[in-house]
C-alpha cells in the first residue's frame, strides 16, 4: 500500500508539474496585463499539434520539440499583435467574449488543418519503457522526464522572475501595472514579452504531453478549467502560488481518485463507499478550491495588496 501511495504521489506530481507549465503563463498574463485569456488552453493544444507535426516530419521527438517551441511562440506573438493587444484594459467580460471566440476559431482551425481524428506522437526511444522506482513497481521513464523538465523550467522561471530585470518588471507589473508604465517602461514590449513567454510555456506543456496523451482538437478545453482552478487557488499573478497550487491540485486529484474509495470503505459499506467515492473524486478539486477561497478569498499567495 505504501508503494502504491508513492507511485500515485509521483503521478500526482507529474500532473501538477504539467498544470504548472500552463498555469505559469496564464497567471503572469492575468497578473501583469489583467487579461482573462480563455484561449490559453488552445495555445497548449497548438503546441501539441505543432510538436506532433514536426516530430512526424523530422522523425525525432527532440527536434520536433525544438521546432515546436519557436513555432508556438510565433503563433502567440501573432495572436498578441492581432487580437490580445486590443483587449488590454478592456472589460473582463469583453475579454472573455473575445477569447472564447478565439477558442472556437483555433479548435475549428485545427480540425480543418489536421482533421478530427486524434494524432499521436511516439515516445522517444531513449525514454520509452519504465524504470523500477519503488520496490517492484515500475514507473514510465517518460513521465519522470516530464517531472524533471517541469522542475527545471520552474527553477528557470524562479530565477527569471526573482533575479532579472524583466522579472523585476513582471513583479512590479503584477502588483501595480499603471505605476510601472508611469515610470517610463515600454509597457507594450513588456506585455509582448510576457505573452510570448506564456504562450511558449503552454506550448511546451502541450508538446510534452503529446507522447502520453492523444492530440485532439478539444484537448485545450479540459486543461483550461483546471488551469484556472490552479491560478485562483495560488493567487492571481503569483508564479510561486501557481507552483504550489498546481502540485496541490495534481496530488489531490490523483490521490483522491485512487485512495478516496479505500478511505471511505473504512467508514461505510463497500457498495456505498465506491458510489460515494465515484461521486466525490471528480468534485474534489472544486471542493478544494471553494475551501481555499472560503478561508483565503484572494488565494494562497495574493500578488496584489487588495484584501
Amino acid at each position, binding site marked *: 500500500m505504501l508503494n502504491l501511495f508513492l507511485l500515485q504521489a509521483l503521478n500526482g506530481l507529474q500532473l501538477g508539474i504539467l498544470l504548472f507549465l500552463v498555469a505559469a503563463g496564464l497567471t503572469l498574463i*492575468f497578473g501583469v496585463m*489583467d487579461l*482573462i485569456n480563455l484561449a490559453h488552453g488552445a495555445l497548449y493544444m497548438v503546441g501539441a499539434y505543432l510538436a506532433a507535426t514536426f516530430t512526424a516530419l523530422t522523425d525525432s521527438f527532440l527536434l520536433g520539440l525544438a521546432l515546436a517551441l519557436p513555432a508556438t511562440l510565433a503563433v502567440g506573438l501573432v495572436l498578441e499583435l492581432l*487580437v490580445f493587444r*486590443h*483587449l488590454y484594459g*478592456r*472589460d*473582463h*467580460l*469583453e*475579454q*472573455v*467574449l*473575445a477569447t*472564447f*471566440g*478565439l*477558442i*472556437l*476559431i*483555433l*479548435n*475549428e*482551425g485545427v*480540425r*480543418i488543418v489536421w482533421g478530427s481524428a486524434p494524432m499521436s506522437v511516439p515516445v522517444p526511444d531513449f525514454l520509452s519503457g519504465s524504470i523500477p522506482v519503488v520496490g517492484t513497481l515500475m514507473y514510465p521513464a517518460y513521465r519522470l522526464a516530464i517531472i524533471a523538465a517541469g522542475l527545471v523550467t520552474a527553477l528557470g522561471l524562479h530565477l527569471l522572475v526573482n533575479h532579472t530585470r524583466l522579472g523585476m518588471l513582471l513583479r512590479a507589473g503584477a502588483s501595480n501595472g499603471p505605476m510601472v508604465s508611469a515610470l517610463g517602461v515600454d509597457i507594450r514590449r513588456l506585455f509582448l514579452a510576457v505573452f510570448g513567454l506564456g504562450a511558449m510555456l503552454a506550448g511546451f506543456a502541450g508538446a510534452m504531453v503529446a507522447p502520453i496523451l492523444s492530440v485532439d482538437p478539444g484537448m485545450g*478545453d479540459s486543461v483550461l*478549467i483546471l488551469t*484556472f*482552478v490552479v491560478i*485562483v487557488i495560488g493567487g*492571481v499573478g503569483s508564479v510561486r502560488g501557481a507552483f504550489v497550487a498546481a502540485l496541490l491540485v495534481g496530488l489531490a486529484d490523483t490521490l483522491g481518485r485512487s485512495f478516496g474509495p479505500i478511505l471511505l470503505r473504512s467508514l461505510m459499506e463497500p457498495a456505498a463507499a465506491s*458510489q460515494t467515492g*465515484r*461521486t466525490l473524486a*471528480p*468534485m474534489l478539486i*472544486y*471542493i478544494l*478550491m*471553494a475551501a481555499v*477561497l*472560503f478561508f483565503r*478569498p*484572494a*488565494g494562497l499567495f495574493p500578488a*496584489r495588496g*487588495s*484584501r
Partner: protein
Amino acid sequence: MSAGASLPVARIEAAPPRRPGARIALLLALVALALVPVLASGIGAPFLIVTATRILIFAIAALSLDLVLGYGAMVSFGHAAYVGLGAYAVAILSAHGIHDLLVQSAAALVVCALFALVTGAISLRTRGVYFIMITLAFGQMAFFFMVSLSAYGGDDGVSLDHRSRVLGARLIEGDVALFYLALGVLAVVFVALRLLVASRFGRVLRGIRENAVRMEAIGFPAFPYQLTAYVVAGAIAGLAGVLLANQAEFVSPAYMSWQRSGELIVMVVLGGMGTLVGAVAGAAALIAVEEGLAHFSEHWRLGLGLMLVLLVLLARGGIAGLTARLRGGRAA
C-alpha cells in the same frame, strides 16, 4: 479587479426611463413575438416554433443572469447549474409520478433558491475573478453530483415520458402551447425584473456595482442586497430549466456544464450587460446564429468565433451598443 465596482458596464442610468414610447415598443415586441407561431405556419416552417421556444427559454435564463451580472456586477460562471437543477426537478418528480407543472415549478424555485442562498453566501466573500471561479466550482459540484446520480440516468440523462401536466390536463403537449407558455413566463419575468431594477432595491444594487464602499458608508451594506439578487436570479433560472426540460423532453447533466454557463455569459455580454432587452436579444442572436450557421457549414464554429472576436474588437457594449452607434447615438 480588486472590487466589483471596477467592472465597467455598457450603460449607466439612474433608472430605466419610463417613457411611454418604451412601453409601446415593448408591447409591440411582445405582439410580434406572439405572432411567430402564426407566421411560422404561414411560411410552411412550423419547425421555427421550436427554435423560437428555445430562444425564449434561454432568454429567461439570460435575463436572470443579467440581474446578477449586469446590475449586480457579480460574474457568475455557474449559472447553468440552476437551469439544470430546475430541469432535474421536472425529471425527478416525474419519475416519482408527480407530473404537475405547478408542483414541479414550485420545487424548482425552492431548490434553486436554497442552492443559491447557500453557495451565494459563501461565494460573496470573494471578489472579481475569485468570485467567477468559486461560482464555477459550485456549478461543477452540482454537475458532478448529477453525473453520479445513476438512479436518474447519471451521465446519460433521462428521457421524460411526456411533458408536464397542468392540473392533470395536457395543456402544453403541443409545441405552440409550450411556446406561448414560455412567452408568458418571459413576459412576466421581464416585467418583474424591470420593476425590481427600477425599485429602491435595484437602485441600491446598481449603486453597489458602481461603488460598494460609498454605498456601505451611507448605510447600504453590499452583502444582503447582492445575496438577494443572487437568490432571485437562481430561482428564475430554475424556472427556465423547468421549461427547457419540457421543451426537450429530456434532461441531462450536460445542461449544467461550464460550457453552458459560458454560453449564458456570452448571451448577456453579446446583448449588452445591464440592459434587460439586451439579454433577450443576446439569447436570440446566439441561438439564431448557431442554428443559422450550422446549416451552411460543418465548420460553423469558426464563423461564430470570428463574429465574437470582431464584435469585441470593433464594437463596445454588445448588440445594444452596436445598434446605438450605427444609428449615430452613443452606447453609454
